[in-house]
């Protein structure tokens, strides 16, 4: 059988890769892809703890479903903003979006 640590280490690695993507990618859409990876890592943790600690209750699954809803909302608004910016400024390189920079 698989000890819980395997899942947790996998989730930690996935989270770190996602974090790297968020910080290092130029393309704004790619940054959102990194955020998706991080959210998935969180969800793996939630489901793992549900399965290993309290499979009789559904708390972990409810949390995971709420995370799905949040991820969907984040993607919808985030991509709409990116498309809007692209239409107005004709770029999606995150570094070039510095209108608010002083």
């Amino acid at each position, binding site marked *: 059988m698989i000890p819980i640590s395997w899942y947790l280490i996998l989730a930690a690695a996935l989270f770190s890769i996602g974090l790297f993507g968020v910080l290092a990618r130029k393309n704004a859409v790619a940054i959102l892809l990194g955020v998706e990876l991080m959210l998935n890592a969180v969800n793996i943790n939630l489901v793992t703890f549900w399965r290993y600690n309290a499979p009789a209750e559904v708390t972990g699954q409810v949390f995971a479903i709420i995370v799905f809803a949040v991820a*969907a909302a984040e993607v919808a608004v985030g991509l*709409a903003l990116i*498309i809007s910016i692209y239409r107005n400024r004709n770029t999606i390189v995150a570094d070039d979006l510095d209108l608010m920079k002083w």
Partner: protein
Amino acid sequence: MQNPWIYVGIFVLVGLLIPIAAIAIAAILGPKKPNAIKQSTYECGIETVGDSWVQFKAQYYIFGLVFLVFDVETVFLFPWAVSLNSLPLFAVFEGIIFVLILLAGLVYAWKKGMLEWV
């Protein structure tokens, strides 16, 4: 073998294997004589101009957006639908409120004219 997903996993494997086998047999049996004309992109016989990077309507994105929100909604509704008969009548109204709130979003997009294909 209490996990039914093992069966599904094997199904996915075999389901991948059979089309791959079909393509592989075709690749072995078929002739291979490529030339430039044959491999050019088929666009009604007219010379292809540029690559296939054409600009798309933002409209596709709007439909994708509305779809995404409703898709997530149905995910919430499936547990509701399964457990409906073992819950008090009150639960039905909770689900109805849930649906109505989202239909309000659809009405908003409709009134804003975002569902028109222009």
